[in-house]
C-alpha cells in the first residue's frame, strides 16, 4: 500500500503540470513558472545556466569564436559561433539559440536576448576607427504590443588610447575608441578596441534598455 502514495503524488503532479502533445497542454504550468521566476527576478537571460566559457578554449579553436557577456542579464556569459554570413554582416549563434549580428564588428541586430535590437543604422568600423567626429544612430525595437519604435541618437567618437594586447594566439596593437551617444530617450557609451585595419577585436556595445550592454571579444580562427 505504501507504494501507492508516491504514484498518487506523481499522477497529481502530472495533472497539475499538464501533459500531452497539443500546443497548449503545458501552458498553465509554464505561465505559473514564468511568473514566479519574474517575481523572484530570475528571468530575462537567454538561458538560466549558460555555460561559463573559458578564454583558453580560443587557443585551441580553429574557427572564430565570439565571447559575449551581458552584465545586466545576471552576468550571462557564453561563446557564440558563426552561423551565417550575409555580405559584411556575420551572425553569431550561442549554444542556447540566441544570436548577434555584427557588421564588421559593429552590433546591428540581436535575436533571443530578451529585449532585442531589431534593426539599426550604425556607424561603420572604418568610421569608428578614425577615433573622432560625430555619427548618427537609429535603433529599432518592438514594444509590448509588437509595434516597432525607433530611437535616434547623436554620437561623438573619441580616441582613448593605444595598447598591445594578447587575444587568444594573437598579439595585436589596439586603438581604444569610445562612442558617446545621446538621444531623447537616454544615453549610452560604446567602446571599441580596433587594430590598424579597423578590425574590431573587443567591444562593449549597447543592445537595449532591458538587455543593457554586450561585451564582446573575437578570438580563435
Amino acid at each position: 500500500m505504501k507504494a501507492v502514495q508516491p504514484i498518487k503524488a506523481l499522477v497529481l503532479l502530472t495533472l497539475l503540470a499538464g501533459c500531452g502533445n497539443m500546443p497548449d497542454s503545458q501552458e498553465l504550468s509554464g505561465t505559473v513558472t514564468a511568473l514566479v521566476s519574474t517575481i523572484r527576478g530570475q528571468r530575462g537571460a537567454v538561458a538560466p545556466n549558460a555555460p561559463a566559457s573559458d578564454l583558453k578554449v580560443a587557443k585551441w579553436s580553429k574557427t572564430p569564436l565570439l565571447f559575449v557577456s551581458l552584465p545586466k542579464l545576471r552576468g550571462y556569459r557564453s561563446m557564440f559561433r558563426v552561423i551565417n554570413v550575409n555580405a559584411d554582416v556575420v551572425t553569431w549563434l550561442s549554444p542556447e539559440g540566441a544570436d548577434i549580428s555584427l557588421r564588421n564588428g559593429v552590433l546591428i541586430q540581436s535575436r533571443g536576448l530578451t529585449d532585442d535590437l531589431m534593426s539599426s543604422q550604425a556607424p561603420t568600423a572604418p568610421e569608428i576607427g578614425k577615433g573622432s567626429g560625430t555619427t548618427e544612430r537609429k535603433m529599432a525595437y518592438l514594444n509590448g504590443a509588437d509595434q516597432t519604435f525607433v530611437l535616434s541618437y547623436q554620437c561623438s567618437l573619441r580616441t582613448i588610447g593605444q595598447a598591445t594586447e594578447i587575444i587568444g594566439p594573437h598579439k595585436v596593437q589596439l586603438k581604444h575608441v569610445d562612442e558617446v551617444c545621446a538621444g531623447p530617450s537616454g544615453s549610452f557609451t560604446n567602446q571599441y578596441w580596433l587594430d590598424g585595419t579597423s578590425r574590431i577585436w573587443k567591444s562593449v556595445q549597447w543592445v537595449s534598455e532591458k538587455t543593457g550592454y554586450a561585451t564582446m571579444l573575437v578570438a580563435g580562427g
Partner: protein
Amino acid sequence: MLLKTPRLASRLGALLLGTSLAGLAPVVAKAGSPSLNLWGATGLIDLPSAEMQPDGVLNTSYARFGGIARVTLSYQILPRISGSFRYTALNGWNSTFPTTYFDRSFDLRFQILKEHGYLPSLTLGLQDFIGTDLLSAEYLVATKSVTPHLKFTLGLGWGRLGSHGSIGTLFGARPSINFGQGGTASTKQWFRGPAAPFGGLEWQISDRWRFKAEYSSDAYKLEIGQHHMFTRGSSINAGLEYDLGKGNRIGIYELYGTKLGVSLQFALDPQERVVGTIIDGAPIPVKVRPTQAADPTAWSTSWVSQPQQLGALKTSMEYLLKLQRLGLVSLAVTADTAQLAFTNTTYHNSTEAIGRAARALSQAMPASVETFELIPVTDGMPLAKVTVKRSDLERLEFAPDAAGQLAPLVRVTDALPMKTPQIQSTAAAPRLQWSVAPYLRAGLFDPVNPFRYELGVRVAARYRLAPGLFIAGSATKRAIGDLNNNNRTSNSVLPHVRTDYPLYDQHGDPALENLYVAWYDHPLRNIYTRVSAGYLERMFGGISSEVLWQPVGSRFAAGAELDYVRQRDYSIGFAFRPYHVVTGLVSLYYQLPGNFLAQLDAGRYLAGDKGATLTVSREFANGWRVGAFATKTNVSAAQFGEGSFDKGLFFTIPLNWLNGAPSQTLASVIIRPIQRDGGQTLDVPGRLYGIVRAYNQGTLSSQWGRVFR
C-alpha cells in the same frame, strides 16, 4: 442597479490565476500613471479627478471601508474615454437580518480638456449610469497640477455627489426612477436634482509616497440614514498611498471622521508584457546565394527534373521548418518559384511565422528560385498567399528598419488557386493530439456567494481524419470547488437555454464538454466553409454550418451560420432534453482603423427569439482584446427578466503576454452582469472568422514588426 440574481461567468480558465499572479509582479503599467479612488476610477479618495489612465490600461481595484467593499475593473477605452464595471458589497444592509447586499454598476468618463499650459484637465463623468439611482452620480471635474508634486481637483456633482452641501438645483428636480427590469440608461435623472461642489488635493511626497485630502459632497444618505452602516462625522477625508511601481498601489485612508479605509490597485498595460518580451530562440538566418558568375553550377536548373533532388528538398524543408516549430504541408517548385504550404501552431504573430518560413526556404532552395510563395494552412484551409522576392530578403535582412522596408515589397493575395505540389508531407502535426491539464471555472455575482469556483482536470484530444476533417472532444472531472452548490432555480419565462446552468453544474460531473466532427474548407477564392456535428458545447448538441466571405485584402467580411441543435441533458453526457431549435445568424465584420473591430450579427437566437447583436472591441497586435456586446431581440424587457436585454464585456489576454513563451493560446473571460435566456448564441468551437482573419491583410499589417523576429 440592484440585481439580485446571480450570473455565471464563462470559463475563466488559466486567466484568473494568471492575472492575479500578474498583479503580484511589479512590472506592469507605465510609472507615474494617475492613481485611483475607492470607486476604482481615476481620482482622489472617494471622489473622481479629471485625469485619465494611459491608453489601453486595464485597472483592477479593491476598496473597503465602513462595511462597503468595491471591486472595480476600469478600462481606458481611448486616450480620452474610460469605462468601469463595479461590483459592490454592502455589509449589514438589513439590520434585522444581517445580510450583504450586492450591486453592479457601470461608469463612463469623457475628458473634454487635457491639461495644457494654464488650462486644467476637464472631465465629464457618469457613475452607475445604467440602473437604479442607488450609486448614480454625474459630475464635471477639473484637475490642475501647480507643481510637479502638487495638484488640485475641483468639481460639481449631481446625484450622490450633489447630496451634501448643495448649492441649489440647476436643471430641475431629479425624478424618482422606475427602473423596471433595470439595465437601461437612466437618462432622465442625469444632472437633475441638487448640485454640490467637491474638491481636494494630491501631494506626491516622494517617488513612492502620496498624500491625498478631499472635501466630499457625498452624504451616503441611504447607507447612513436608512441602513445605519456608519456615521458621517466629517466631510474631510485624508490618506496615504504607497506606489509598488508600474501602476500597482496600496492605500490607507481616514474617511468621514469615523472610518478607516484601504485600497489595492493593480494595473495591466497591454503594451507592456508582464515578463518583458517573448523569449524565444533566434530564427534561421537568410542564406545568401552566391552570384551566378561566382558559382554557375549553384544556379543550374537541371535539379527540377531530378526526383532525388525533390526528395532531398522535402527532407531539408521538414527539418528546417521543425527547427522553427512550423510544419511542412506541401511544396511546389519550379526553376524560379517555390510555393510552400505550412502550418503554424506556435506563433500568435502570423508575420513571425511567415518570416521564419521564408528564411527556412532560403536555406534549402536552389539558387535559381527567386520567388517565394508562402501559404499558411490552418485546419486544412490555405489562408493567404504571401509572395516575397528572395533577393529582397537577402538585401534587407540587416538593413535599417528592415521590416518597414520589406512591407511594401510583399504581396498578400488569396491562397487560391494553388499549384499542384510535387512534395506533400504528413509531418506537419501528429494525427492524434491530446492533452491532460488542470482547468478552472468560476461563477460570479451570486448574492448568496458572489464567487464560486471549480478546479479539476480536463482531458482533450483531436484526431485528424483528412486535411480539414477532424474529430475532437474534451471531458472534465471536478476535483474541488463549490460551483455545484448553487440551488438557484430559473424564473425565466423563455425556454431555459442558459438559465438552467446551476443544474448543469450540479449534475454534470464528469462532463463530456464536447465531442464532434468538424470539416473545414476553402473551396473558392474568398469563401471559407465549416460544418460541425456532435456534442458541440456543454448545453447543446447538433449540427452547425457556416460560410464566410473574406477577401484577404479587405477590412470587410461577411458570414452566415445555420444550426440545428438540441438541448443536452443536465448530466452533460450523451443524453438530450426535449428542447430543440433552429438558429441562424448573418454576420458582418469590419476592422476599423486604429485596431477596433466591429461585428454585427442578426438572426434567430437559441430561445427562438429574433434580433441583433453589436460587438465592438479594441485589439492590440499582440492579441490583447477588450470589448463589449449588446443583443436586443424581440422579447420584451419583462419577458427577458432582470437586465432587460443581454449585454456584457469581454477580455482576451494572450498567454504569451503573461508567460513570455511563444504560443497562440488566448485566455478569454466574458463578464455578463446577468445571465438570462434572451439573445443567446450557440457556443460552437472554431468559428471561421477567428481562424481566417489571422492571415488577412489588416492583421498582417498590424503585426508586421515581427516579420524578421
